[in-house]
Structures are given as structure tokens and as C-alpha cells.
């Protein structure tokens, strides 16, 4: 099953091969390797428009997820046909993330992987609107990032650390 990667912006150079490798490893850590995923690297303009259209917040952001299935956190979708082996689409606000990294001094590629992990968890029903939801999502992010760290030697931590 494939990860359809698109780089639809020109504001920031994005290394495609490492990003794909990270997303494939994270998807495998979630037990969802048999599902397709769409991944779009977007600039601030597109993120602002999507955020405004779907969340009534017309401002750029780091990640937006559009699940194909509605599932409870921790459950895998139950596809009925080939076309339903699809987790949905993740829009990574790479321009926004790059700006944040410049401000904080964090590693851009590392933060891209962490943000993709967050987006993947959203595709599988994880939320962070309440403390119990966040704890569940945070735990899953820790779990899959540890697996990625084991493969790459990195030391990535979840995006939502300290949210509650």
C-alpha cells in the first residue's frame, strides 16, 4: 500500500525520500501498513484556506488530517473493498513548521516526522480535546516515535507533549 506524497509548495525545500521513509515506518508502527495514505506538503496559503474552510480558523497551521474512516481511537478501519484501504489525507504545513523551527532552533526534518506522526494518529481516530483523549493520543505518539527512533537513531518526542 502506498504513501502518495505531493510537494505542493515552493517556500521551503523538502527532502521527499526521508519523509516518505519516516511516514512508512510510522504507519507500520500503527499496524496500518496495508492502508494508503495521502501526504501533501503545503504552504501557508493552502493551510490557511483549508483551516478556514474546515475549522473556521483562517490561519496557517502545522498539520490538518482528513480521515477516510470514522473509527474510535486505537481501532483500525474495516474496509469492505479495495478502495477503502485508505486512511485519508494529511496536509503538512511545511512552511509554517519551518518558520516555527527557525524560531525555536529545532531540527526541521525531525519536526516534520513528529508532525506526520501526529497527523497519522488523527487519521486513526485519536483526539486531544480532553485530558483522557490527549493521554491516549500522547501515549500512541510516544510508542510509534520510539519505533522510528529505534530505526533511525533519532530521539523524537511527541508534538503534544505538555498539552494538558
Amino acid at each position, binding site marked *: 500500500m*502506498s*504513501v*502518495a*506524497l*505531493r*510537494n*505542493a*509548495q*515552493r517556500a521551503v*525545500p523538502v*527532502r*521527499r*525520500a526521508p*519523509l*516518505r*521513509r519516516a511516514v512508512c515506518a510510522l504507519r507500520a508502527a500503527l499496524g496500518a501498513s496495508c492502508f494508503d495514505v495521502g501526504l*501533501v506538503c*503545503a504552504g501557508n*496559503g*493552502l493551510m490557511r484556506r483549508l483551516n478556514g474552510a474546515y475549522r473556521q480558523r483562517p490561519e496557517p497551521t502545522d498539520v490538518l488530517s482528513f480521515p477516510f474512516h470514522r473509527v474510535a481511537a486505537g481501532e483500525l478501519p474495516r474496509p469492505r473493498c479495495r478502495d477503502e484501504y485508505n486512511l485519508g489525507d494529511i496536509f503538512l504545513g511545511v512552511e509554517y513548521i519551518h518558520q516555527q523551527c527557525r524560531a525555536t532552533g529545532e531540527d526541521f526534518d525531525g519536526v516534520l516526522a513528529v508532525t506526520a506522526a501526529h497527523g497519522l494518529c488523527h487519521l486513526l481516530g485519536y483526539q486531544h480535546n480532553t485530558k483522557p483523549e490527549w493521554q491516549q493520543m500522547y501515549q500512541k505518539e510516544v510508542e510509534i516515535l520510539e519505533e522510528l527512533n529505534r530505526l533511525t537513531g533519532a530521539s523524537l518526542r511527541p508534538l503534544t507533549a505538555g498539552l494538558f
Partner: protein
Amino acid sequence: MLLARALRAAAALRPPPRYPPRRLLSSSSPRALLPPPAAAPPLARSLWQLGGGGWRTALLRPRRGSAGGVSCGCGGLHTEGDKAFAQFLTDEIKEERKIQKHKSLPKVSGGWELEVHGTEAKLVRKIAGEKITVTFNINNSIPPSVDEETQEDQKPDEQEPDLTSTPNFVVEVIKDDTKQTLVLDCHYPEDEVGHEGEEESDIFTIREVSFQPTGESDWKDTNYTLNTDSLDWALYDHLMDFLADRGVDNTFADELIELSTALEHQEYIKFLEDLKSFVKCQ
């Protein structure tokens, strides 16, 4: 690759002449059916010069001062239609010059040197033992869908949207120590240009990849050509990263559109000027 292929295909499709051209002027040609002209001019001209007051002359040769046309002594036909055509072209050239964004071709950042031969442009860059060339042709580089949409949707008082030239381009990577050139045939996504969803797709895509002998103008169709339609995604991403490392990335693709659009507009205005001169015969 496609450029070379298109040229070869065009050459292959052109039918050979049925008769050698000299047959037209030979004594056994159909010209013998017409009264022989005094000085035996070529066939094409003889049609115009035959018969002092015949019906053929009356139809074809414009009379001075008639509504049909005037003569300037050049031997060509000048009609009221030509005059209106030339005036139209004068106005059109004036308007096109008014909206022309670049008086000279814009530069592409990153140390690329530009060579232009008519409608074909070549960008060349040398980095650390490698030479990278990017070639494109501005002919037929404006997607037709843009025209269709604007004509249907445009209100009378609305300004025409800018036309954008998005040519296919060929990247050649030549390493100093090899006899092979890596050739990557790149496209702007055709279906997406001017349509909703455009901003969610790649700015450009690689369609084909092959090796060709360095320094030879004729590329070999017998060399293996990798089509990216059925390519492993990971390999495709490595090819895109490979290009980005050599300066061919989304920013470059954007600047190439700007350059191509400027060149296309420049050539269009030049064509209009040539057409005007041709119509006016001056």
C-alpha cells in the same frame, strides 16, 4: 527526450513528394494546357500574367482604386481586408506591448546561464564535476484549457487573465568522467493547470528517465526508458531529491514558468510584427 522524439516523428510522418518539383516546369506539365506566355515564366506567376483582358485576370488582379484593393508596385495583392488586417495587428501589437511584463527575459536564480535559439531555450549550470542542462520549447506551451475556461466564464468588462506558458522540459545531467548522460523528461501536471486542486499537486513531475550517449544530438530509442507511471514511489522520491540537489526544484520550476511565459510573449509579439510586415508588404 520528447523534443527529439517529436522531431523524429514529424520527419517520419512527412509524406515524400509524389513528383520531383522540376516536373511542374517541364514542357510536358499541365502548363501546356494554358496559352504559352511570351517569356515562359514559372507556372505560378503565369496564372497572374496571362491574357490582357480575360476573365481570369479580372478576378485575380485587383484594379487600382477599386474597393477590392490597391497596388504598391511590389507585385503583391493588397486589399481593403489586408489594410484592416494590418491596422488590427498594429493595435494588437500596441496592446501586447502594454501588458508585456518583461522587456528583457528574466534571469533564473542559482547560477543558470541562458541560451535562446528561436523558440527553444537552454539553461546551463556547472557544479562540481557535473554539467546540468534544462531545455524547453515554448511552442504549444500554453495549456488550451485556460483559453476555453476564460472564454466561457469571462464577463465582458473583465480583464483577460494572464496566459502562462508551462512547457515540458528536459533535464540532462552530465558527469565529467562518464560517457552517459542521465536524461529526465519533466512536465507540469496538465490536468491540474487552471483547475481546482492545482495547489494540492506537485509543481512538476518526472515522466521518463533514460541514459543517452553524451555529446550525441540523436538520442537512441533503443536505450531503456523508465516510465514513472508505474514506478516505485520511493525511487521516484529519490529522483526528485536528486534533481533538487542539482537546483531543479519547485522554486526553479516556478522561475522556468516565468521565463518561458516571457519568452513566449516576446516571440508572439515578434510573430505579430512579422505578420504585419508580411501583410503590408513593407
